């Protein structure tokens, strides 16, 4: 699969709140919808479709969120790993045959990102509830579903960087035979990610923006996983003066 044809998709989950209090997504959304429900009725799930471009897939997520916000402006959406006693995930769909090398690469690269930006307490709770284990994946008709990440919808930047790293991890293996496990070696996650661009040989054009933003994201001082994601996606209505 050439990098130009490699598609990404996802079905990240969100906890819904009204006025800061948990509310069941099933009171608002239907199962078979891009702004729909997870198998667990309480949690919302976004199914934006797919794209070869991390930027386009991020924009598709915004379009779906916009629809949900327009329909139910009172709802707040929270991302992360474990929110209001619910484990929430951010499965990533990739149109490539799963191999041990590819799953290893996804694990090393995306868990490094998670080490740097995610709420570590939430990760522990999610794992204790049986989700988010390392190397969790399912073989699918289109390729593979990588199931380890939490819900990365905090902001377009976190989403874009996640997709970009997922694509680059796969391309690194399929195009350039990179072994990310060896490349990381004893480096901590931050140092490894700061150097990752130097390790990569093939960098598709649609991954440049995400790679640039990765460095700024890693330098960001504090990330609040408790906040409503909608303002970060430019989706809170202000009143014109």
């Amino acid at each position, binding site marked *: 699969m050439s990098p130009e044809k490699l598609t990404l998709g996802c*079905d990240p989950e969100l906890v819904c709140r009204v006025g800061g209090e948990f509310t069941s997504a099933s009171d608002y*959304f*239907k*199962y*078979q*919808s*891009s*702004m*729909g429900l997870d*198998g667990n009725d309480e949690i919302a799930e976004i*199914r*934006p*479709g*797919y*794209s070869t471009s991390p*930027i*386009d897939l*991020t*924009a*598709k997520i*915004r*379009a*779906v969120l*916009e*629809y949900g*916000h*327009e329909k139910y402006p009172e709802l707040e959406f929270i991302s992360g790993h474990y929110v209001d006693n619910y484990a929430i995930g951010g499965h990533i769909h990739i149109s490539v045959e799963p191999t041990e090398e590819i799953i290893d690469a996804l694990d090393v690269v995306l868990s490094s990102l998670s080490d740097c930006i995610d709420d570590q307490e939430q990760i522990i709770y999610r794992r204790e509830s049986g989700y988010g284990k390392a190397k969790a994946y399912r073989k699918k008709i289109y390729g593979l579903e990588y199931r380890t990440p939490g819900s990365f919808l905090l*902001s*377009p*930047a976190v989403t*874009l960087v996640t997709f970009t790293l997922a694509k680059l991890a796969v391309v690194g293996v399929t195009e350039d035979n990179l072994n990310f496990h060896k490349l990381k070696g004893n480096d901590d996650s931050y140092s490894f990610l700061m150097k990752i661009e130097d390790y990569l040989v093939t960098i598709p054009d649609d991954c440049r*923006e995400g790679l640039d*933003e990765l460095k*700024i*994201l890693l330098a*960001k001082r504090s990330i609040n996983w408790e906040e409503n994601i909608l303002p*970060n*996606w*430019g*989706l*809170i*209505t*202000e*009143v*014109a*003066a």
Partner: protein
Amino acid sequence: MSIECTNCCCKFNDEDIRWYGDDPYCEDCFTDRFTYCYRCDEPINRDYCHYDSSGDPLCDDCYENEIDYNAPDNPEINDAEREQIITLSKSWLNGKRAKSLIRINRNDLYLSDIQEGVGLVDLSLYLYGLIDREDYQIRVSPNIFNRVSQFVLLNKWDATLTEDKGYNRIGISKTLRENKQEEIIQLIKSIATYEMAEAE
């Protein structure tokens, strides 16, 4: 009492029979031909069965009830939306408030073109389509009613306004959207952009 299976015609005891409507089937034939709806437990013919994203079977009614036909389905993305994602990302990373595209009903004609023409703006605003009707051609929420009304008057549009609910909402008729795209773009920019609002 023995009952004949509708499919294989073998006879079975009453307690070994399963029913699909008024038709009796033996266990094997029933399992081959039918399953149960994951939601309502109704038996469904496997030939006409729907499946949800987890692969669970659904009957027609539950499937229809569970679809939201208005939700975007793998939406097309244009250049303005790509630019918006990059702007939003960078703004969040730098702790700043980002400009964004106006929100639209994607199912209404010409709105994507208008959204792209307006570009990124300071204030979030929702634009939707109205069908053509005689009594009014524009619906506007109260908070921006006067400004839209003034624009329509100054630009001599042949259009009647009526009040909508909520904030920052404008509905525009199909004919206006078709014939006055550029003017609509200017109208929205004048409301949703700080610089243009201040210049007025």
